[in-house]
């Protein structure tokens, strides 16, 4: 065989042999400063808010960055193969705890880290993605905070806002697991509340324009519901351009999407998810076991209304709603 190839293979084998021997002899040294790995799935305002919340939550539990806490923050930018590399990095620097923001990041951490606790922040269907088997008593080394939107409250708010509401269009990205889960849950709840739904999914943001047009044509729907969907959040302008032209109100689940032209939402505050996560992390860093930390939910939403949009669509906001709402524009 070619000598260069031979040398390369020999060098690599020697290196791996050495590493394997070393790996079986090293012991962990105790650290004063706790190290936490945070793996964020992609750049997105909502996900970033979770991160800000995590820092705040940790501070509440007495962990301050630069003081007794080191955060290794990695952003995979939506790239699956980065997730594994970054998760391995956390493993090799032996973090005390790792957090995955958004489901794919959490799955990657849970797969890579066997010993350290893994916490998910902002996962919609952790049972479906096998992060946990039940919410009350996490079995393995994984627990976390759910980001399911309060859909029941959302539906009753929509009915209050639009007394003549009969059919709701639902738009989501089929490749987004959380969005799919939420959209289907909405469909079920809407039926229980006497509403008809027309569900449409898009494969990528390129299809949004046409799908929205199709969904709202001939006034088949009285309103549009959009679940927590990253792709559609990024293309909100495309949606609103079409719905405004047809005078159809849009009800998202996230306050940033209300700001971008949605009418109203019973939104969960992403930062609060982060804070809950941060507190949970703090408790585990202080010695609590993962088993003792049940998966946490966001109990209720905060009503946000876009007044400008209401005026544009000619909708008068009922008094009961406007009293408890936060207005944004």
């Amino acid at each position, binding site marked *: 065989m070619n000598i260069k190839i031979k040398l390369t293979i020999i060098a690599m084998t020697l290196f791996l042999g050495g590493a394997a021997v070393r790996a079986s002899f090293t012991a962990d040294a105790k650290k004063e400063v706790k190290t936490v790995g945070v793996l964020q799935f992609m750049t997105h305002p909502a996900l970033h808010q979770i991160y800000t919340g995590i820092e705040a939550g940790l501070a509440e539990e007495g962990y301050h960055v630069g003081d007794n806490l080191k955060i290794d923050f990695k952003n995979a*930018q939506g790239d699956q193969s980065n*997730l594994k*590399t970054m998760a*391995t990095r956390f*493993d*090799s620097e032996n973090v005390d705890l790792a957090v995955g923001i958004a489901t794919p990041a959490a799955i990657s951490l849970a797969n890579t880290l066997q010993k350290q606790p893994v916490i998910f922040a902002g996962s919609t269907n952790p049972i479906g993605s096998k*992060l946990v088997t039940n919410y009350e008593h996490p079995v393995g080394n994984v627990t976390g905070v759910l980001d399911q939107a309060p859909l029941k409250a959302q539906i009753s708010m929509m009915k209050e806002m639009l007394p003549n509401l009969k059919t709701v269009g639902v738009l989501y990205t*089929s490749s987004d697991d959380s969005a799919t889960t939420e959209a289907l849950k909405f469909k079920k709840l809407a039926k229980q509340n006497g509403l008809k739904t027309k569900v449409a999914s898009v494969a990528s943001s390129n299809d949004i324009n046409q799908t929205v047009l199709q969904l709202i044509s001939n006034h088949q729907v009285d309103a549009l519901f959009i679940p927590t969907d990253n792709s559609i959040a990024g293309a909100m302008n495309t949606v609103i351009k079409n719905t405004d032209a047809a005078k159809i109100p849009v009800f998202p689940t996230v306050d940033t999407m209300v700001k971008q032209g949605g009418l109203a939402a019973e939104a969960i505050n992403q930062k609060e998810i982060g804070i809950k996560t941060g507190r949970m992390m703090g408790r585990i860093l202080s010695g609590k076991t993962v088993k003792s930390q049940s998966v946490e939910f966001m109990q209720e939403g905060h009503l946000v209304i876009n007044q400008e949009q209401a005026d544009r669509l000619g909708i008068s906001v009922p008094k009961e709603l406007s009293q408890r709402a936060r207005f944004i524009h």
Partner: protein
Amino acid sequence: MGVIISAIGQGIIWSLLGIGLYLSFRILNFPDMTVEGTFPLGAAVSVTLVTQGVNPVLAIIIAGIIGGVAGLITGLLYTKGQIPILLAGILTMTATYSINLRIMGQANKSLLGVKTLFNNQFVNWLPDNFPTIGVGIVIVIVIVASVAWFLQTELGQAFIATGDNQTMAWALGINSDAMVTLGLIISNALIALGGALVAQNNGFADVNMGIGIIVVALASIIIGEVVYTDKLTLTERLITVVIGSILYRFVLVAVLAFGFDANDLNLFSAVILGLALLLPKFRHSLNIAKLFPQKGAK
């Protein structure tokens, strides 16, 4: 340290992708875009089967067979349908996206808590990251040996001849259409196998995991070629693809270690690949070859 070991492991299991593309890209001279569809196809099939209790080894074999079917479709579109190869590949790739969603029934399917090739009792005793390397090496040796054996058979020689010159091969009585189709089947089967392996290693399959895959595959081939410029046998070439794949992972780790934003990773990958492609040109114009006379070159 752990990161370097992990990079070697990742490089080994990702190298199947490079070996698969080597057959279509280097031997047949085809830029086969099908790979961006067959890679996640292999992942989807293997993850779905494993979650349903199928043996992980059997799951990656089935994934390989189904990947071969995707290659067959591209081959038929190209040879029988006379559709340009680039377009034929893109058609199959586009179709597999929907098929992958159907197979998994969701966009992202997880393997948490399920036994895979990388967390069974045979490899669990190994230190961190070594299961990946161990399983990867065994599979890569089997694949490289089979491909090398295949290329030395009469059929394999006819296949190589077709890649060299289709008209000539045809004149020699070789059915070049059949050879091209065969090449695309084997190549895509290997790539689906790679996807299946990567998915079991990562612990999940995702419909979007094929995006940009062709650059990763090309990078392993071309880095291998740039580092080993000597005249090599085909078997040695296949080994350099594996080494190229490992070196490419090193580069990515280095880029991340220097604190560059992961946002820029794709840019770096493209720049590295571009430089590697341009290097032979520089070598020629700078006459580097004269400074370092190559042993064994005729």
